[in-house]
């Protein structure tokens, strides 16, 4: 049951950043109407954000990673279930690990 100082600081930094988004967004958007391009950029953020995380991570795992990612996307598109998609991805990664 350790609580290291560096870990606590990182957690508090994350908590502060997240609270700024939750409460600061409300306070700021109420006081000032944000410029249109800020609003539209925020609407466009989720897709590029996940892509920008996934791309280098998959690249570091080679062909196996990209093939498993295709399986995940297909499973999510067909079933609409996040759980099924994650399980399919892990299963694909395990299966590909046997052959590649």
């Amino acid at each position: 049951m350790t609580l290291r100082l560096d870990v606590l600081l990182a957690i508090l930094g994350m908590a502060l950043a997240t609270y700024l988004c939750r409460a600061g967004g409300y306070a700021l958007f109420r006081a000032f109407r944000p410029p249109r391009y800020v609003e539209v950029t925020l609407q466009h953020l989720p897709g590029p954000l996940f892509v920008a995380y996934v791309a280098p991570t998959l690249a570091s795992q080679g062909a196996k990673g990209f093939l498993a990612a295709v399986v995940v996307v297909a499973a999510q598109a067909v079933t609409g279930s996040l759980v099924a998609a994650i399980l399919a991805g892990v299963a694909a990664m395990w299966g590909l690990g046997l052959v590649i």
Partner: protein
Amino acid sequence: MSGGGVTFTSAGVLRGMQVGIPLVIGTFPFGLVVGVISGAKGLSLLETLVMSGVVFAGASQLLALELWTDPAPVLAASLAALVVNLRLAPMGAALAPWLDRLRGWKLWGTLATLVDHSYAFSIAEIRRGGRDAGYLLGVALILWMFWMVAVGLGHVLGAVVQLPPGHPLYFAAVATFCALLVPVWQGVRRDLLPWILAAAVSLGAWEIGLGAPWPLLAGALSGAALGAWMELRRR
């Protein structure tokens, strides 16, 4: 919406908790994954629970953990949380019909619990004419409780099984974000070019050896900026 007559009662909180229970089916496995990954990255059970309790935003926790190093990456983790959770900023503004009528902890405390699900349910409730803002807190509270249980359970199970590094199960974290891309996709015209740019910029930044979170930030912001530019130009 006049905003008049907005209340904040414990009955409203309880009703929010009740309607939020089915949502746990979706968030519980996600919490398990966060718990397992957290343990694998060397965080203790206490550290894992503190993070989940005060951050309470699954995608940003998972992403920060993926960037985790020893000693803990204070700047990288904070920036990752900021970028992933920026999407929450406009949600508070959209809930103004309720939030503008609240004061003190009811306002700033409820905002601390804001998550995608409680936002979506509350917007629907406002449109139905709902006037009890306790509903917003209630939906988030029930999710928070089960989030803590799921993350703690994941951490304990991960410690029992003792997975070696590179085990296929760790692919669950990346798989989560790949799967999240599917409902976010709104069509070739809107998303294809911004997503390609995001991938190219993040891969380029990674290839030249930039450490976390810079490939992520550069890719996310350039892609979102291109998407916004294309959308505004079409009008």
